[in-house]
């Protein structure tokens, strides 16, 4: 186990800067998720931690040791790739023991570690199969098994669940979280899925256009987003943004209200119902308020039909104010 420090890291491809001097501290044993939209630089940052991508400026430290110049094999990390990257010509057992074999471990040690990992991940019956004979979820488990047999200081996950269907993703999410609780090893996990980030992370790093927008726990990001980007990115359905004057605020203000923080009460925003989506216990209603689309979520059944007019009032103390020009929270 080890802490990871990222200090003023810059990545350039020729004249194109994709990471603009980001800094973050990851504590020993912490589960940190790098989240952001496609192209925000999260995978590039992970690959720089892994040593698969050279660092243009700044430094990365793993376990108190600057690793900028070290090869991936010397960083004591293990990585799970998006497409699993299992060696197709080797059995599951061989795949899992491959790194140990190349580090000179004895056959007995390799067998012991592989069987230990296989037991944890329920892969015992699959050890003699090849990756081509496995389902997506099984391949995912083998990829994790390959990572844990080495007992590295840091695990790196690069969107490991994005190739799985929605149901399996939920299962594997739980398994990865469970693995972290069991092993206690530092994990850095990249995803573009904010639900994945919020459910798994001890700490979330929200990235956008090569910069870190905010670092915090899921509730911190949800309750006190630092800017309009984080406010809009974290939470599903996304936060509603309403120009200040419509909410009795100044022209330079944007007011944010989460969908679940509306109530139907007099004195609110008059919205014409466009869409009603019953979700069983919840009801999601999309309204048009003077040309602004507002999504409201109610934890009950609401008898409304398209064309009705509803008065949507934000709950007291549940609004967020942002400077419209910079997007910064006020």
């Amino acid at each position, binding site marked *: 186990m080890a802490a990871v420090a990222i200090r003023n890291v810059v990545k350039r491809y020729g004249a194109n800067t994709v990471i603009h001097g980001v800094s973050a501290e990851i504590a020993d044993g912490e589960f940190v998720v790098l989240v952001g939209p496609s192209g925000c630089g999260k995978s590039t940052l992970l690959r720089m931690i892994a*040593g*698969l991508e050279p660092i243009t400026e700044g430094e990365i430290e793993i376990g108190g040791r600057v690793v900028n110049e070290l090869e991936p*094999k010397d960083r004591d990390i293990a*990585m799970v*790739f998006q497409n699993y990257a299992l*060696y*197709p010509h080797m059995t599951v057992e061989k795949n899992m023991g491959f790194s140990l074999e190349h580090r000179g471990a004895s056959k007995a040690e390799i067998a012991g570690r592989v069987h230990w990992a296989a037991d944890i991940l329920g892969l015992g019956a699959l050890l003699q199969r090849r990756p081509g004979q496995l389902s997506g979820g099984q391949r995912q488990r083998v990829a994790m098994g390959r990572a844990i047999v080495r007992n590295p200081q840091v695990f790196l996950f690069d969107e490991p669940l994005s190739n799985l269907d929605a149901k399996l993703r939920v299962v594997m999410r739980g398994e990865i979280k469970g693995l972290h609780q069991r092993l206690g090893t530092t994990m850095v996990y990249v995803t573009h899925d904010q639900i994945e980030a919020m459910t798994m992370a001890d700490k979330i790093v929200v990235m956008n256009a090569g910069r870190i927008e905010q670092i915090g726990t899921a509730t911190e990001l949800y309750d006190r987003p630092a800017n309009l980007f984080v406010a809009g990115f974290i939470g599903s359905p996304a936060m509603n943004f309403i120009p200040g004057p419509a909410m009795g605020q100044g022209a330079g203000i944007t007011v944010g209200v989460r969908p679940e923080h509306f109530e139907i009460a007099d004195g609110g925003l008059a919205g014409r119902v466009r869409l009603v989506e019953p979700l069983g216990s919840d009801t999601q209603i999309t309204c048009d308020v003077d040309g602004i689309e507002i999504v409201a979520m109610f934890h009950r059944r609401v008898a409304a039909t398209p064309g009705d007019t509803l008065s949507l009032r934000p709950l007291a103390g549940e609004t967020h104010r942002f400077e419209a020009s910079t997007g910064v929270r006020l």
Partner: protein
Amino acid sequence: MRTELSPRLKLALYGLLCVLAIPFVFPTWWMVTSSVKPISQIFAFPPELIPHTFDWSSYADVFRLQPFAQQYWNSCYIAAIVTVGTMAVSSLAGYAFARIRFPGSNLLFLVVLLGLLMPTEVTIVPLFQMSLKAGMVNTHWPLILVPMLGGMPSVFSTFVMRQFFIALPVELEEAARVDGLGRFKIFWTIALPLARPALAAVAIFTFLQSWNLYLEPIVYLTSPEKYTLPQALTQYVDVYQGPMWNIQLAAATLTALPVLVVFIFAQRQFIEGLAHTGLKG
């Protein structure tokens, strides 16, 4: 979605394929059957598709008139060395062009590809001069070194291997780097075993090229015991330089045998290999 063909349409398609196969199958059939016919019956009209008498003496004559066994061995070992050597050179070069970024790599690859555009007839005279100076005329070295290190087979094979390695997911190699492997070990333990279909295509293509080489042997080789098979076939002539058809066809049958065997057993891999590289015929 594929539509199931009706039995009648299937039958018609197979019939059409059989008709289309005639121009390819008939010459081979004629070669094999004529090699056991007496010479007087070879050009009889109408042609006899199945000989009514079998005369095996032409096979004995093949070995009696020339050191055919030695020539057979020459072709075998030259083709084997060229095949193995080309597989080694082209897989290393193809991997380097696909995976190692170095200044001018694309330009260099273009220069290598230009080798495909250069006809053998253009290069054979300077190569002969070089071989003469190096004392390699009437030896097998030019037939081994040229195709392996810079001839058309090695250039084409390098191209095939490069295309294959480009298509191989980079993440496999990155996973191997994280697992602790260096560049050569990644090539040897990950990339090369996965390149088996492409290597098979290269092997078959190179073997056939070397086995069928004709112009180069007649330029470089002068002694019958050094000849390779295509050159040896032309030597079965009578005193008036007319071909001794039955003997020549018997020798041709023996010459075609390994090629047929190789292709029958490896045709699936050959086609797979070319399909992997995007070079569908």
